[in-house]
């Protein structure tokens, strides 16, 4: 059953990727949404998105203060524990300050592991920044070519783009099923479908997604009818216990604009013209993540998702110490409020703390359901 396959991948993503390394594949750890995974794929490597773990951080505490955030600390912990040695290398981009510092720490404390920094601007406006963005991407491409010893072939890149674009389209279809009324895909399965894509090869993931969509098409939707549809927003949602909790409180995720969700996969690469330039343009123009400026396209994406899903409220799941998202939140909240859409903020450190979250979510769902919000 494809649903089981998808969720099994997520039980031990690193273990899963270790298997590939044993089989002789090169796995490249990637750290955020500005790593052009198409380049890595076209160079015959498997991009693996690093999403940390919920385990406690001990070794990395020596180098990163708590306020660097759980994600950065946890990834460094995994590396210091030796859990990432099977990776051929690590690629990060100049995203948040924590991730940028992680690059320095990697070079200093994980000697011998190939690590690349894609030094892109944070401001995705203006001619100069565009030029520098493009240049940083090209430099990364060259670094990758040196590493593999093979030039990035246009034909191979075109094939990779096609695979990635198909993946994006399939995920968008999944998102559409999620927000159908009644939903034709459960929120839990949708989340598993998205997250497993960070671990599986894109080809395998596409295969699973096609099977999943096909099975949804055959099944008669039978649940979720009475659940309050909500939109979930934030940089990262990997706590898979959150959606069952939401459901127990009488609500469901009908749409999202997560950094580990639609912000990652929404935009496609133009398949005409020069493939290298097309990939670069895609990352320049994609829905900007919270650590990029301007914020407007991100807001418009959030809004369009809510309109599509008819979500009746928004839950912001924000990583503690992720400053970028913490600054956005009150602005988004007020803009939503002006439109009569209530919202709730939940702090997360890769996990959401059980009981307190339950009480707050329950109260929020009751408010949304009762329409008592003003």
């Amino acid at each position, binding site marked *: 059953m494809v649903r089981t396959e998808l969720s099994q991948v997520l039980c031990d993503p690193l273990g899963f990727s270790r298997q590939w390394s044993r089989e002789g594949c090169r796995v490249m750890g990637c750290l955020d949404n500005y790593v052009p995974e198409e380049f890595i794929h076209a160079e015959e490597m498997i991009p693996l998105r690093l999403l940390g773990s919920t385990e406690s951080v001990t070794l990395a505490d*020596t*180098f*990163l*203060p708590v*306020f*660097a955030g759980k994600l950065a600390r946890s990834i460094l912990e995994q590396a210091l524990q030796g859990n990432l040695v099977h990776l051929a290398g690590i690629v990060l981009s*100049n995203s*948040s*300050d*924590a991730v*940028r*510092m992680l690059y*320095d*720490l990697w*070079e*200093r404390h994980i000697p011998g592991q190939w690590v690349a920094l894609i*030094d892109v*601007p*944070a*401001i995705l*406006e*203006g*001619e*100069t*920044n565009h*030029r*520098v963005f493009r*240049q940083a991407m090209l430099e990364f491409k060259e670094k990758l070519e040196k590493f593999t010893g093979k030039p990035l072939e246009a034909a191979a890149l075109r094939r990779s783009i096609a695979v990635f674009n198909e993946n994006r389209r399939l995920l968008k279809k999944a998102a559409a099923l999620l927000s159908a009324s009644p939903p034709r895909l459960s929120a839990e399965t949708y989340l598993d479908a998205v997250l497993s894509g960070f671990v599986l090869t894109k080809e395998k993931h596409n295969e699973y997604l096609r099977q999943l969509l096909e099975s949804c098409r055959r099944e008669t939707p039978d649940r979720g009818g009475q659940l309050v549809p909500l939109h979930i927003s934030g940089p990262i949602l990997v706590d898979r216990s959150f959606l069952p909790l939401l459901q127990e409180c009488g609500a469901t995720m009908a749409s999202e604009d997560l950094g580990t969700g639609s912000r990652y996969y929404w935009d496609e690469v133009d398949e005409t013209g020069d493939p290298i330039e097309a990939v670069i343009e895609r990352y320049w123009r994609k829905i900007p993540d919270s*650590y990029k*400026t*301007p*914020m407007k396209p991100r807001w418009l994406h959030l809004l369009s998702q809510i309109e599509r899903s008819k979500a009746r409220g928004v839950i912001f799941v924000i990583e*503690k*110490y992720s*400053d*970028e998202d*913490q*600054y*956005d*939140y*009150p*602005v988004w*909240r007020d803009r939503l409020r002006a439109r009569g859409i209530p919202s709730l*903020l939940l702090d997360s450190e890769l996990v959401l703390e059980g009981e307190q979250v339950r009480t707050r979510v329950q109260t929020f769902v009751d408010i949304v359901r009762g329409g008592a919000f003003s």
Partner: protein
Amino acid sequence: MTTTAPKKKGRALNSSYEAAIVLKEYWEGAARHRAEGRPVAWVSGNVPIELFWALGIYPVYPENYSAVCASIQRAQELCEEAEERGYSIDLCSYSRVNLGIVLGKGVDHPDLPYGGLPRPDMLVTTRIPCLPQVKWWEVVREFFDIPMFVVDATMVDLPIRESQRQHYLGQIRELIPCLEKKLGVRFQEDTFLETLKLSDRAAEIWLELLDLRTAVPSPVGSREMCGNVFPLVAMLGNPRTIEFFTHLRDEAKQCVQEGKGALENERIRLGWDNIPMWYNLKFFSDVEDRNAIFTYETYLRYVWGGRMDLNDPWTAFADKHLDVWLNYSINQRVRTLLHDIVKFKLDGLVFHQNRSCKRFSMGQRDLAQVIQENLGVSSLFIESDMADPRAYAEAPTRVKMEAFLEMLEGKKS
């Protein structure tokens, strides 16, 4: 702390008393400029400040204003205003103070220091010191609905790469016409170059002053110097800065020539990393009772006001703005610190783990490790915040500091 030696009262340098006057002049100047209908921009640390003075745009520094609020014990209430509006307590406290003002009572509330913050016509910020700075400015833009320009930059290892320099200059070439258009000013290169000269002259004197603090005994400690630094942040290109710094430098020089230190019996020399606790500058002078002096700060040496080779002014202008501590990679910070510890003859380093300023605080453990391994110089970590006093725990910090000084004393004898 226990007193073991007589302590010098008041300022070590009389000229330091002038700092408050300069600061007042700056804020009054801003209010006047606004009242006269001339353009005002809100700017942040490490913006190309000289451009503003050259263009007749008054550069208003909300960060400094937040520090001022902290130093008169007003920061907490303003932080709380921002927190009530949903801004996390984990965000930079300068921004919380500012957002507390902007979203709370409003920028020109008479209850605020210097009669309030003049309203901006435009916002200019940069990613050089940190990314949250940009996010903070976006919130401010949301409120005022005025134009904003952000100067991007990537972190550097010295020497600065040509591509990084060109990235910076490219944006400056976009910023100038943007300022001209939005604020109705006109850029004249001559005036700009003159302003650069003034800026560089001020930086030169400031660095001479800092270098005088390599002397044993040191002529002036951190408490006083943190109060003196402000014109280097906001008034580079303004002749008043040169005047003030000259007074400081000359007086310090005189002290050094006469062998006169800020302490009568200087025994331990300390360095400080990160932004000071503005609400608790006393922390620096408290150690003087133990004959210890803070005589070096990464914050005062590498955050603003580097020198420029004006034979190649645009290159120098770019490099100066990129060559700052907060924009250094950890490796660069290590190299710089190793050099300076020897130069300033430091016995110990105090690292302020400043929960507000994450970019400053990440990597500090690496620095401490390296200076211990390479130079045998010990460090102390204190956890706090530059403006929000709630993050400072007086009793345990004092105990730690006492123990640290005792250890350093033990090492000396």
